[in-house]
């Protein structure tokens, strides 16, 4: 039952992304063409409210559900991975119009094409793991 709360949060995420059309290929295309504020509004509002929320947890004003200080890890400051990895991710995002979270929601619609897409995501993830020591970070 400890897992139930994560199902509920995932469920909230799923309904939201569906109803705001963030899982639509057309919305991502529109975003990269700068033809609507919609996606920038969603991400921007998530960042602004998220910064406030993060600060509340970091400063200890809010503790975790178990009453503990929530820990945040700083990301390592080695730049190639963020630039090259980011560009590769962006190429894929612009092409398929889907970021990883959307795929789970779309699988829920029963459309098998997204199961194939998930397999492709897993192959890409596996390739990274296999090549990790050979590429610059």
């Amino acid at each position, binding site marked *: 039952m400890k897992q139930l709360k*994560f*199902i509920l949060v*995932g469920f*909230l*995420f*799923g309904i*939201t992304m*569906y109803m*705001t059309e963030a*899982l*639509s290929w*057309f919305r991502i295309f529109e975003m*990269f*063409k700068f033809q609507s504020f*919609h996606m920038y*509004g*969603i*991400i*921007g*509002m998530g*960042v602004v*409210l*998220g*910064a406030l*929320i*993060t600060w509340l*947890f*970091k400063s200890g004003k809010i503790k975790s*559900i*178990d009453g503990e200080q*929530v820990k*945040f890890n700083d990301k390592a400051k080695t730049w190639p991975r*963020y*630039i*090259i*990895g980011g*560009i*590769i*991710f*962006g190429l*894929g*995002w*612009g092409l398929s*119009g889907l970021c*990883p*979270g959307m795929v*789970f*929601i779309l*699988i829920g*619609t029963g*459309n098998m094409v997204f199961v194939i*897409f998930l397999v*492709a*995501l*897993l*192959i890409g*993830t*596996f390739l990274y*793991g*296999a090549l990790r020591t050979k590429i610059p970070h």
Partner: protein
Amino acid sequence: MEFLSQTWPWYVSGTMVALVLFFLLWFGKEFGTSANLRVIVAALGGGKFADFFDFPWKTQIWNLTFGLGAVIGGYVTMTFIAPEPHFADISQATVDTLNADYGFNLTYGEVPILPEFFQSWESVLTLKGFIIIVVGGILVGFGARYAGGCTSGMAISGIANMQLPSLVAVIGFFIGGLVMVNYILPFITNL
């Protein structure tokens, strides 16, 4: 209930995204959906082939459970909240651009959520569908792990936590996305 089945405006969904972040932090976790892909590869035995997948993935089952919740959310939304046909409320400018340069034949106000290459699995058998689904998926999966996160972990959680690397990664996302959409995609969607 009528308002529920309309396209949710950005300030509603932006607030909900922040709420999702709040709950996951409150539960002592991090918001990062692409990390789930690493968990799945590890659960499938990827650790036998690469050290990267040799980690205690069972501590991350909560993230798989989150993913399961998203699957259920997709099912419930399609079945009960927004039964077909649900149209993507994209701008007239976007419809015009897609029709003029990208080989689409769309009518403003009647744009389906999914383009035809995502409407059935058989499209993967076409060259266009294969590139968008398989090549696109591999790029997203590879890039997300290489950069150390995707839209949820980098663009939202990372920047909200004032992480400069996350901002750099998101700038990378946009360089890649802009190059793809403006210079490469027209050749693919016109196939």
